[in-house]
């Protein structure tokens, strides 16, 4: 972001809040960028001559006579193949010591794809994790968040998923990442030897929160370059969207907007949708898939952030610590991939959806048996078998450290059915049982 010659400079602020400054200026465009006392800012409101700017770096120690220079354009990113393998901050400036990226300058937060030009997502993304591939299969062009409590290893799972997924580019948008997590991602990507296909935009916790607002748009502008211009399969990782939403509420609060539920801005749904809806399967074959993280407060999904997210995304993946197996599992009850039916049995083996349903139903029976046990009622033989099955099912299939191909997941499930249940108890179709049943 360099300054150009003959830019008008103003030096008289009329109002300062914790996130915004206001001054009198002329010929200013909505959304354009400016530098306020050396910090990047963006126009968010114009009323006659009064222009209000949101200062990304915070307004601490900005004086009323601070120098304000307008850029005459909204935030942008230089896009080219040179983006690959690089690390940037929220403004798109390199933080890896490398040179600035040369390329075509593109405005971030651009227009949406015409829904009529989209294609139906229909390509499987295998991850090796059975809790995902078997029960909640991911599809290119899908947008799906992990709902996880802050103490769960969501960043680890996400980097695992990303590195195993068969995609051309991985773009990380890190918002409020702790420095440790940032270094973790960097290390994981480097040691996997995948750095050449990864682009990272990172805002860490020691940087101002409002800066985060730029991260998703930066990441998605880069993603659109590779997906639209280069017809590549792009996977975008956004972590943590809860911190992004928090930054939104800070700005709206400073602008005296009336908050809606959970002190979030009334436009939260639209703000989040604008990001998530960038996920797309393009007619040319390129695609953008978004996997995000939304951290929860003690599993509460009725909070405005996860609630609005759930209405926007195509399902959610719940991480939960399982007491029986002692492992972190992908919860089969609360997780959902809305697009799974587009690939199950079509891109995978014919018994996929049937096996998935049967195994989850039996797992539900086990959880009923557990409730019975806790309430001090007697357990039947079937209940006991369910409990044993649940433990093995959680360890061998639901746990996030599993890494096997889908066919092997299906075979494992059949093995468990044969070990603990009769054919009738599984409720599976006769035809499938004939073909796949395994006696213990």
């Amino acid at each position, binding site marked *: 972001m360099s300054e150009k010659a003959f830019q008008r400079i103003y030096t008289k602020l009329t109002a300062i809040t914790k996130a915004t400054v206001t001054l009198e200026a002329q010929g200013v465009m909505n959304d354009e960028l400016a530098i306020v006392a050396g910090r990047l800012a963006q126009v968010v409101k114009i009323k006659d001559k009064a222009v209000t700017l949101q200062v990304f770096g915070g307004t601490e120690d900005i004086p009323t006579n601070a120098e304000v220079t307008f850029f005459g354009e909204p935030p942008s990113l230089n896009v080219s193949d040179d983006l690959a393998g690089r690390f940037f901050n929220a403004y798109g400036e390199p933080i890896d010591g490398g040179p600035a990226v040369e390329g075509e300058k593109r405005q971030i937060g651009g227009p949406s794809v*015409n829904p009529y*030009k989209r294609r139906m997502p229909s390509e499987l993304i295998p991850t090796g994790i059975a809790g995902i591939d078997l029960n909640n299969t991911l599809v290119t062009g899908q947008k799906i968040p992990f709902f996880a409590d802050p103490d769960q290893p969501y960043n680890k799972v996400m980097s695992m998923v990303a590195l195993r997924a068969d995609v051309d580019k991985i773009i990380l948008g890190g918002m409020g990442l702790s420095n440790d997590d940032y270094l973790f991602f960097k290390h994981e990507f480097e040691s996997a030897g995948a750095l050449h296909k990864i682009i990272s935009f990172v805002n860490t916790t020691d940087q101002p929160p409002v800066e985060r607002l730029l991260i998703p748009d930066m990441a998605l502008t880069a993603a659109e370059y590779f997906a639209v211009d280069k017809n590549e399969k792009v996977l975008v990782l956004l972590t943590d969207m809860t911190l992004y939403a928090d930054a939104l509420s800070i700005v709206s609060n400073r602008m005296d907007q009336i908050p809606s539920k959970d002190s979030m801005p009334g436009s939260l749904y639209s703000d989040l949708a604008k990001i998530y809806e960038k996920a797309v399967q393009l007619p040319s074959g390129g695609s953008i898939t978004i996997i995000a993280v939304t951290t929860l407060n003690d599993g509460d999904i009725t909070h405005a952030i996860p609630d609005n997210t759930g209405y926007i995304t195509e399902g959610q993946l719940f991480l939960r610590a399982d007491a029986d197996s002692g492992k972190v599992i992908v919860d089969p009850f609360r997780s959902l991939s809305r697009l799974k039916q587009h690939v199950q049995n079509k891109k995978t083996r014919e018994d996929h959806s049937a096996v998935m349903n049967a195994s989850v139903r039996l797992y539900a029976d086990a959880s009923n048996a557990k409730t019975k046990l806790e309430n001090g009622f007697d357990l039947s033989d079937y209940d006991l078998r369910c409990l044993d099955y649940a433990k093995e099912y959680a360890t061998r299939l639901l746990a996030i450290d599993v890494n096997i191909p889908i066919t092997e997941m299906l075979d494992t499930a059949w093995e468990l059915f044969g070990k603990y249940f009769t054919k009738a108890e599984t409720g599976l179709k006769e035809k499938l049982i004939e073909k796949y049943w395994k006696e213990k």
Partner: protein
Amino acid sequence: MTTGKVTGIIANLVTVEVYGPVAQNEICLIDLQGVKLMAEVIKVNGNKASVQVYESTRGLTIGCPVEFQGYMLEATLGPGLLSSNYDGLQNNLATMEDVFLKRGEYTKPLDENKIWDFTPIAKAGDQVVAADWLGEVKEGWLPHKIMVPFSFEGTYTVKKVAEAGRYKINDTIAVLTNADGEDVNVTMVQKWPVKVAIGGYVEKPRPFKVMETGVRTIDTLNPIAEGGTGFIPGPFGCGKTVLQHALAEQADAEIIIMAACGERANEVVEIFTEFPELKDKHTGRSLMERTIIICNTSNMPVAAREASVYTAMTLGEYYRAMGMKVLLLADSTSRWAQALREMSNRLEELPGQDGFPVDLSAIISSFYARAGYVKLNNGQSGSITFIGTVSPAGGNLKEPVTESTKKAARCFYGLSQNRADKKRYPAVDPVDSYSKYLEYPEIIDYLDDKIEKGWVDKVTKTKYIIRKGKDAYEQINILGDDGVPVSYHEQYWKSELVDFVILQQDAFDEIDSSTPLERQKFMLDLIIEICDRSFKFDNFEECTTYFKGLINICRQMNYSEYKSEQFEKYFGQLKEELKHE
């Protein structure tokens, strides 16, 4: 034409200084270096008008010129609407060239070069008023009436109607003479402001017919009337969309209009991809031929979201005036309400509950009121049945949009998280949901006549079985399987029988997905007959096993073609089971 210039910008709310008269809801175009951004006046104060812009306002500056158009947001009405895919402002999405939506790009809703086979209905000398039929063209297989424009006031005399033949929509197909003796040309296309209800009918009687949907939990338990209103609130992941699609595919309507309002783009793509492939169960033709999609997905400009539901309703009213049975589905009306909230917030209006505008309830009511069954001038009838979905925040139904809609809609199909978690689909809660139409004497008479005398009593009885079962289930849960008399288990399992056989329905199964009324009656009679029996079980396990067996057979019946050999085989098995009770 009044002009003005931009004096303020906050997101998509723009303040304009106006030099001349300006009307509330008038459309204006803001000129941003040659790109025209469409906007609507939503407030006027002195010489300042607040306008909501239907596009991104990025790059807009103070002083940009504005031209006021002198009309409100209008829909273009004429042959060629069916099977179109529009955005909220009725731009044709299919004729846009770019992959990305371009700001300021507006496409024509109708193909002006398409040739239509016109047949006259009116003849010279006829006295006509607005909405009277002058002629018709075949739109696909549906007769599309060309009407006296809705905006015409008073009585006109037909001077001339075009001969049967091939015409384009802008060709004159009739000349009418007004009371002052002036001649007016009428073409096949007319415009109408979307926020104003189309009149042109004699009366709007109370709905008296039931609209068959093939969804048992609706038709049997809480039927919706033709020309009626209903809404489906539910948390995410409870199957709102699947249920809406089922209604669109199966309902006994001639025209389907789907307004995807602020929802996922991939869901709309699913409709785009699947509807042309799906066969209409009533005519065997492609479903898309009688469908119009209005789509403003969640990432498209917020202000156009509000417009999208009004555009959809206006198109519905247009087809209703032709004597058609229209089903209008809007998914989701909460997104529309949120768009209103965003705007009210930027206007710095005093907020109502949860930050929504205080007149939210009135806006929703007057929108639902546009649906209905009408008697047309020529004695024929038409209807709009409207079903909206609501996405309550956190799944909590005590929020303004749900509460306001409850006052406006006559049917309530509440989706229950609990049922969805148990994979009991459709997840419509049988206890909380209701249809006010079951209290209408007209509807009771209609059902007496259409199905059988005393049908509504049977429905009431079924609901009673479900409620009793729920009570028994709670007792069993508290006291344990052995802690209650076996009769409690019997009561509970009878309600489970109703649940599994009548309420649950597999939307993805070719046969089970749609159940005709006759078949619904057969199954309900069968289930009630079983529930009327009293069984003598020695213990609860015997009861459980017995009913599980019955449920399994009945479900196999649901999956078999009605009265087929297979169906009769299972029916025989069931009778056999029932012998040793």
